[in-house]
């Protein structure tokens, strides 16, 4: 008995010591960085859906150049995740972030990429204080998604999105669908980012000088109820609401259900964008899904245009934690991503993203992306406004959700939006 206990004690001690040693060892090997002969850099990818493809691409790149690119992904909030990396003094060499992060994170840590071939090949690079800091991964645009097959099934005719220009056209068309047997032809995603950062955002973006409008909101000088654009977009929103197939549970309808309905043609229209492609593909996709501008009764310079721009930007860490050689390797990799045939195929075909580079003529494998690309090429894209305060989408998302669930009137929504901006510290940029 005594002996067993002794043996057990010794065993436990060994296990615990080994455990500690392993923890210590793990930390140590992390900082060494290199894998031996070749250069090794790290890349943080914040698009979950392309993680595997990215790892595959990194392998290709290593075979060609000998430079090892380790691709990481994290479920965590991007800024929170990068904060821990900086706090531990081991940031990624290349970081994929949202455009607004380039103005904060990129400005502090980013390395200047000017002079590379890709810079002249795009309109979407982000330049801060004369330094090219943001490398655009793709273009994303917002509008009304439609399922042309579902529509054809009801109307018997091929759907021509250009036939719908005004809200009245849209309403008439929806009524036709209802008469044809499709009870509820629309759907609305309920998350705050979709309602506030994507839909409401259009109120700021579809005007000549969004910056001046935002400054007016900060100063409390804007009366949204008197604003034609706000009312026009809300009228369209009301229409989407009226025909919403998830009307009974508008704010509990999970994204999956909304995407499934669009993918399988249970409904015909949904407010969304090209990033939803992968979600839509998950179901029994009927094919023939496209995107069109949100029809409004106010006709102006933005009629017939999608809203969007560069989305998900890479910046190369230029802080003291990353050596010059690694920075150079990182920039070379990004340049390769934009200019090589492999890189172009990766963006457009493998990942189905809309390339922000003019020289990329590889056809996009994403049905929605194909349409977006046409709008981009025709210059019919209203640019994004990237300087919202960080709590904008969540705070006003709540207000939009209330409006979606008929818990508040348009006046109350307008007042809440105005109040939010008037009580928020302006974002410096």
């Amino acid at each position: 008995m005594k002996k067993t206990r002794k043996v057990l004690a010794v065993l436990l001690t060994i296990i615990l010591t080994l455990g500690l040693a392993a923890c210590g060892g793990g930390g140590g090997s992390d900082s060494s960085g290199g894998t031996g002969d070749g250069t090794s850099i790290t890349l943080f990818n914040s698009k979950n859906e392309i993680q595997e493809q990215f790892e595959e691409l990194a392998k290709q790149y290593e075979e060609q150049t000998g430079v090892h690119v380790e691709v990481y992904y994290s479920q965590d909030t991007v800024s929170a995740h990068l904060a821990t990396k900086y706090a531990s003094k081991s940031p990624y060499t290349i970081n994929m972030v949202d455009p607004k992060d380039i103005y904060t994170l990129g400005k502090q840590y980013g390395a200047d990429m000017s002079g590379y071939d890709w810079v002249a090949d795009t309109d979407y690079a982000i330049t801060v204080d004369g330094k090219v800091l943001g490398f655009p991964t793709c273009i994303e645009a917002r509008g009304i998604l439609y399922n042309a097959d579902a529509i054809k099934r009801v109307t018997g005719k091929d759907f021509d999105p250009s036939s719908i220009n005004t809200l009245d056209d849209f309403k008439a068309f929806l009524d036709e669908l209802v008469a044809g047997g499709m009870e509820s032809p629309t759907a609305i995603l309920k998350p705050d980012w979709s309602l506030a950062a994507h839909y409401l955002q259009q109120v700021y973006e579809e005007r000549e000088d969004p910056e001046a409008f935002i400054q007016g909101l900060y100063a409390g000088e804007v009366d949204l109820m008197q604003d034609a654009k706000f009312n026009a977009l809300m009228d369209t929103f009301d229409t989407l609401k009226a025909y919403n197939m998830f009307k009974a549970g508008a704010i509990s309808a999970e994204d999956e259900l909304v995407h499934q309905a669009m993918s399988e043609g249970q409904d015909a229209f949904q407010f969304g964008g090209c990033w939803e492609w992968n979600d839509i593909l998950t179901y029994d996709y009927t094919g023939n899904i496209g995107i069109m501008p949100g029809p409004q009764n106010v006709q102006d310079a933005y009629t017939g245009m999608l809203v969007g721009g560069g989305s998900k930007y890479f910046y190369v860490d230029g802080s003291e934690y990353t050596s010059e050689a690694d920075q150079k390797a990182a920039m070379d990799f990004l340049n390769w991503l934009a200019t090589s045939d492999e890189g172009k195929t990766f963006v457009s075909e493998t990942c189905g993203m809309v390339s922000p580079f003019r020289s990329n003529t590889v056809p996009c494998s994403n049905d929605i992306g194909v349409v977006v690309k046409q709008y981009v090429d025709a210059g019919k894209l209203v640019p994004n406004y990237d300087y919202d305060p960080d709590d904008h989408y969540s705070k006003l998302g709540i207000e939009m959700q209330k409006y979606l669930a008929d818990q508040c009137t348009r006046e109350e929504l307008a007042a809440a939006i105005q109040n939010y901006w008037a009580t928020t510290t302006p974002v410096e940029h």
Partner: protein
Amino acid sequence: MKRNTFSYKVKQYLMFGGVGTFLFCAVVIVPFIYGIYLTFTSWDGVSRDKPLVGFANYAAAFKDADFWMAMGRTVIYSVFAVVFINILAFAMAYLVTSGVKGQNFFRAGFFVPNLIGGIVLGYIWKFVFNRAFVAIGNAITGGTTTSLLATPRGAMFCLIFASVWQYAGYMMLIYVAGFMSVSDSLKEAAMIDGCTPAQAMRNVTIPLMRSSFVQCIFLSITRCFVIYDVNLSLTKGEPFGESVMAAMHVYNTAFTYKRYGQGQAEALILFIVCAIIGVTQEWIGKKGEVEA
């Protein structure tokens, strides 16, 4: 060798508690103190400079209406959850110590929910509330039933329900230990003296189990106050941000709104509130403890 010298005691302490103390300092005390320092800065979470701003973050935290709403919600949630967790746990413990058939199976079964992580558990219940219950409701009424998660009160109910389901089994184990610690002879003596089983339970068993109650209530209060994972996966603060609990608000302030200092200050306030309630409860509970 003298055993009552200071250096001998220090050495003895270091030998047994040195590693533990070091680790505790490294992962709890040091970050805690550093966290307090951060509450005096306007750090955004990532930038290099952490400008000192004095007590501005505390002022902002006290003025942050959303934070106090979240705090109020957390108190309401905790009260209901703690009461139901303990009632249910006690009842289950009574059941599985009363000699019913297959009580070991029940013990294991009731404990299982506690083995499922909060995030997974939240998603499971989300599915049940959003799909299963709605489908059953539709089938019964023939109309459209709205999900409980679509209304603020319903979401609160779902959170309490899921937490009770998660923790009751764990607390049950502590109550089971309590029941087992009360010797049968005492109950028998009470019965011989003319007590009914209910009286014996009220006057003999429960007072002797007081330490189990103190522990269970302390554990459930402190866990409920800092609920985050179930909150995130089950409701994500929806609908209309009316199920955002204090911890989620702190996270959002610090990481989503990038006001790290303010978030940290709010976290400290949450900690203090939690500590005061926990310690007071423990103190009151311990005061009247009876030893057999």
